[in-house]
């Protein structure tokens, strides 16, 4: 009985008119910044609101052409390229669609839902990243209201994904005027659906990363860990450097999607835990006490993992020009990785233009170092580990005839 009363009130049924209106609603989402690790949340959320998946439009990967054609003259301030290029994404969604969008949905993601929550101070987004929509919007309002001219509603809710309790109201307040018949109860359910979709997607990628690691352990092969921010997955920002390395035969892992299975983490951090250097495998206080930025925290944690897992013989650091969040972490990240004997290479100050020639030379150099040093690195790191870990156990099971 008590449980029955505790149930959230159900939403009023959606009228036919509202249902039909929603089916036609087209939402454009700039594929930028932290949308790269939260896109599944937004897909799950909007689909739960009964918007058609075909009407959820993401902008293309970042490119020079996109910026030239759609974002030129819209910049309001000089800042890092991942934020600056958002103008091009806005422009593409406003001017570059065959079918006009009704809503340009550009969430100001204040904090992120991170697997490290509870073990770090906070999981905030970078101040530039969270404020980017306000900044980019100004470039489309400065001379005249481009959104109004194109009959597009610019919806940029501030969203605290690290505080899920607050999210329904944040999204309801922002969307109630543009999504017909929306109620707070329905928004709350859609938020739950969004988080569930995101979790399912992330779990799937983590499982794939574990498969890669088990394959490396089974075959005695090295792999590479990428330490970067979510938007470096954008081919126009990260310049597909990791893809070039993968083409040399080295599987790639991203720290954001490293498996978080307790058996694996216990094995990786067993000595640190036993010596009281950390309280939990996700604790990074021993290397980075200012743990308030979600993406920075995950990069530092990824560096610790790369330093310990034997088959990760190389870590690649990607950083964008003028990234103030990365700047103080350059030395700690490099130190964490290199002290363990793991190879470390960094591509800093990445900007709009892909330095194709220098990337090619560096990729060849990295591949050469990996070829020469990986066996020694793996052997040395294995010596520091506590017996056969779960990855090697998986290797043994895979090899056993039964």
């Amino acid at each position, binding site marked *: 009985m008590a449980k029955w009363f505790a149930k959230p009130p159900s939403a009023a049924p959606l009228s036919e008119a509202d249902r039909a209106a929603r089916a036609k609603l087209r939402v454009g989402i700039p594929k930028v910044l932290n949308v790269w690790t939260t896109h599944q949340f937004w897909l799950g959320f909007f689909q739960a609101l009964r918007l058609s998946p075909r009407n959820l439009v993401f902008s293309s990967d970042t490119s020079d052409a996109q910026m030239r054609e759609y974002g030129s003259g819209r910049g*309001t301030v000089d*800042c890092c390229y991942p934020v600056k290029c958002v103008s091009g994404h806005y422009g593409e969604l406003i001017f570059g669609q065959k079918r006009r969008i009704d809503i340009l949905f550009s969430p100001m993601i204040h904090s992120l839902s991170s697997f490290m929550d509870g073990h770090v101070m906070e999981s905030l987004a*970078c101040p530039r990243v969270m404020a980017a929509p*306000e900044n980019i919007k*100004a470039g489309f309002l400065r001379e005249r209201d481009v959104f109004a001219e194109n009959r597009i509603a610019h919806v940029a809710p501030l969203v605290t994904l690290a505080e899920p309790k*607050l999210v329904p109201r944040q999204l309801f307040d922002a969307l109630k005027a543009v999504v017909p018949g929306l109620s707070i109860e329905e928004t709350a359910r859609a938020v739950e659906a969004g988080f569930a979709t995101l979790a399912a997607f992330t779990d799937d990628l983590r499982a794939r990363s574990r498969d890669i690691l088990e394959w490396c352990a089974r075959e005695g092969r090295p792999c590479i860990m990428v330490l970067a921010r979510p938007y470096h997955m954008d081919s126009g920002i990260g310049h597909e450097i990791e893809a070039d390395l993968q083409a040399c035969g080295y599987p790639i892992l991203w720290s954001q999607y490293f498996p978080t299975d307790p058996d694996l983490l216990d094995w990786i951090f067993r000595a*640190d835990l036993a010596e009281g250097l950390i309280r939990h495998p996700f604790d990074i206080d021993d290397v980075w006490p200012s743990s308030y930025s979600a993406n920075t925290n995950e990069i530092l944690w990824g560096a610790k993992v790369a*330093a310990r897992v034997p088959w990760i013989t190389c870590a690649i650091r990607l950083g964008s020009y003028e990234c103030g969040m990365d700047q103080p972490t350059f030395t700690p990240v490099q130190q*964490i990785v290199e002290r363990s004997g793991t190879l470390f290479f960094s591509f800093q100050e990445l900007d709009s233009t892909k330095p194709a020639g220098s990337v090619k030379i560096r990729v060849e150099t990295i591949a050469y170092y990996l070829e020469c040093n990986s066996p020694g690195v793996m052997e040395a790191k294995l010596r520091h580990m506590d017996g056969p870990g779960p990855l090697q156990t998986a290797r043994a099971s895979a090899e056993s005839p039964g």
Partner: protein
Amino acid sequence: MNISAKHHFRTYAPAPVTKEQIEHVEILFGGLHWRAEQVLQAVFANMGYNARPLPPAIKDDLLRGRELADIGQCCPTSFTTGNLANFLQGEADRMGASEVSDRYIHVTAGSCGACRFGQYHQSYELALRNIGLDSFRMFLIDQKQPEQGTSAGGGLDINMPLTVGAVWGILCTDVLQGLEYRTRPYEVQAGQTDAVVAECVAYLAEVFRTRPYRGRKWGTVAWHMSTGYFIKALREVFRKFEAIEVDRIRVKPIVKITGEFYLQTVEGDPNYNIHRWLESEGAEVYPAAIAVWLDYLIRCQLQKIEDYVGVEKGARAKLAALKGAQRLFRWSYNRMRAALGDIPFEMPDQYELRRLAAPYFHHRLSGGEGDMLVGKALWAHHKKKAHMICELSPYGCMPNTMSVGAMAGVTGKYPELLYAPIEVKGDAEVHALSRCQMILTEAKKRAIREFVEVMERTGLTPEEAKPLLEARSQMNRATYRIPHTGLAAGMAANTLLHLAGARPARQAP
């Protein structure tokens, strides 16, 4: 078991400072303007600590900071890192690295981001390592926690009497700074204001050094709120200003300083000495009070709680309690301002700033001055508090560039708002000042135009105003308050309006 995890990298952890050691240790701090630093030194002394502010940061510090820490720093990081490193290096050359590590510790503000401000310590640590002072002890103080207990070893206790003393010291020097900046541009005898201010700061430092002890926690808070001790001291400061003769009919544009905390607060090389430069170019500077920043920090906390009202039990009560604390804070500032004749600049209402900024910048976007930067510009413009906004933003500052970008929407809607966003690199003075001068030229024209309009409105000319002012000798004193009418921003224009209000309007010929 693993062989060991000892070979892995670990971050810097300061060695403890014991109660015995602290008696022989000198605490280094910095990052504020000289008035506040001198008074904070006295607050430390009052608590039994031997402290001293680091020397004012200079260009050499900028270069040293860039050399010693990771590339790509914002200029406040470079200045403060280099400042600490240069000072310690000098001392190490004199007495040896080991002696320096024994004799000094550094205390710096830390924060929970969201920008690099919360990570300054990383640059300091790297710089110290690079100059061979790995064992130097540095401690972070959380700027949002009034009570943080003792540091490792128990030597340094960040408790309520120390925090409240520091806040009251800042409030007192803020109002003093406000009075100073409203006086110096109009002083008749050049240099007189500076001399009086130096005397007043020394006097206030003594007042704080001999501050009575009133308990460890709420007793000390209650005493600071209710006592006349600091008000009496500020009245004495006011009496010292009485000696300064001023000529307020000088037409000067008022330039409001906004921007990143460090650059808007310090007065020196880090911001190209822009306060003094603006005055030398004929402006009256409206400085950025630290109290406004503290008020903003309280608002940020309130906003976080506001979001939980209706979501979590007890949020409403917490909100009411913190709102009460904010009112008491503002009341304390206004009480001090009143002790200086209400001449120092007022503290803008945070919720008015939020309302003004709302169409351009979300109030929950954290880092730097956030929406306050936008709100202050609009507040000064709409209420005729200043002719021009000079916004000091460090090159590479993450949050400030966002607020500045949002200002494009503001200037699009209010093209008449004179806004000079100055990107400060620390070593590009001519470029920055020439940019500022372009807008200042327009601000000067605007101040003159405003003055002419007031002359027409009141029928008073400067020549006619002079004898009227001479007849009321108290009006030529720094301690006379010219009311802000809301009709004009400039001091000269408001003086004419004030005089006109005191005499019958002239008949048309």
